[in-house]
């Protein structure tokens, strides 16, 4: 057991970590604790349109996904009817993607039934987009490399040594700097998560109307209770109002669940890196990988469940 720990590889890693401590101690590089900024900062301007670092990273995520899709489907034969069996056998990366998509498709089918062909493209896109967005924030350099800028009035800045920010507060008179990173995980920007939540909630209404035509809106305005007297009628109306509120509250819970989890994770990683550098962050990076996956999966599954619920006629459960 102990023998296995003392391999050459582990020794090199240990030496590297020690060397990192020594070098950063000798250079006196002490960076300030990260500025926790709730809003994404603009990094470049196209016309009058400010592009924030989260938006920039979201574009990179899209490029990654498009390239991955192209690589996956690259060697599929164009003419499927005359293709040999051996041409259709996936290998390598596309094998992995097919395995993953098939797994999710089977799972979605078990929840959504016959609607799976309609739901699956949307929820899988949401899942892949979110999971890559969550994980991209864990890459070293995302959120730590950026421009030094003067902070907005009121906030205090730090002195910079060359290109590196130091922990010393800015000298009196001179204006200090703060770091504005080029890249930032898109899920740590509320705009991103609210946009996805709006899409998910809107599509639930769309599928509801597609499945039950105008009967879908009976959920929100139910007058059938008046057949059983005025009291039941008023209660049914009130239930309709509650349904409307729960539909709107979904936007908040969808978006803040994703945002809160990923944002809190990034802050946790940043704070831990300042408690004991290099070492303590490692297990938490693993945790954040897991959390990023789970949150993407949860978002996908909630969208799937709400889509499915909206296709089922309201009150069907009570009178079979």
């Amino acid at each position: 057991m102990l023998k296995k720990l003392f391999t050459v590889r582990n020794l090199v890693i240990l030496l590297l970590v020690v060397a990192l401590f020594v070098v950063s101690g000798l250079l006196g590089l002490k960076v300030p604790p990260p500025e926790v900024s709730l809003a994404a900062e603009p990094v470049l301007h196209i016309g009058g349109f400010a592009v924030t670092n989260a938006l920039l990273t979201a574009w990179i995520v899209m490029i990654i996904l498009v390239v991955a899709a192209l690589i996956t489907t690259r060697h599929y034969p164009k003419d499927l009817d005359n293709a040999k069996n051996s041409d259709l056998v996936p290998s390598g990366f596309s094998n992995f993607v097919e395995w993953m998509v098939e797994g999710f498709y089977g799972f979605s089918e078990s929840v959504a039934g016959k609607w799976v062909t309609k739901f699956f493209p949307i929820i899988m896109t949401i899942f892949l987009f979110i999971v890559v967005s969550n994980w991209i924030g864990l890459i070293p350099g995302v959120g730590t490399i950026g421009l030094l800028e003067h902070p907005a009035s009121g906030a205090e800045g730090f002195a910079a040594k060359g290109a590196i920010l130091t922990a010393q507060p800015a000298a009196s008179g001179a204006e200090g700097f703060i770091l504005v990173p080029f890249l930032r995980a898109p899920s740590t920007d509320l705009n991103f998560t609210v946009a996805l939540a709006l899409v998910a909630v809107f599509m639930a209404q769309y599928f509801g109307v597609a499945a039950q035509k105008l009967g879908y809106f009976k959920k929100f305005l139910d007058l059938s209770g008046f057949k059983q007297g005025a009291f039941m009628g008023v209660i049914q109306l009130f239930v309709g109002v509650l349904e409307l509120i729960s539909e709107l509250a979904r936007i908040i819970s969808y978006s803040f669940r994703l945002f809160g989890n990923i944002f809190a994770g990034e802050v946790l990683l940043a704070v831990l890196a300042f408690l004991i550098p290099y070492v303590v962050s490692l297990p938490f990076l693993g945790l954040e990988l897991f959390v990023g996956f789970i949150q993407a999966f949860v978002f996908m599954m909630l969208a799937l469940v709400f889509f499915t619920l909206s296709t089922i006629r309201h009150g069907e459960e009570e009178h079979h």
Partner: protein
Amino acid sequence: MDVEGLKAIGAALAIGLGAIGPGIGIGIIGGKAMEAMGRNPEAAGNIRTNMILAIVFAESVAIYALVIALLLKFV
């Protein structure tokens, strides 16, 4: 005590107290799901997905507390 300090205490109390309920809830959900899986291991996959869904609903209460905490801290 200045307003900033009171705000910080308010934010900490909001998320701290708000996490108690969902914490207990998620614990109960997880425990019951484990019990069910132990009794009926064949249904483990189905139970797990439903467990995650239930956990998410319990968690969203904590998310509302987080929203309040963030509002207090940053807005």
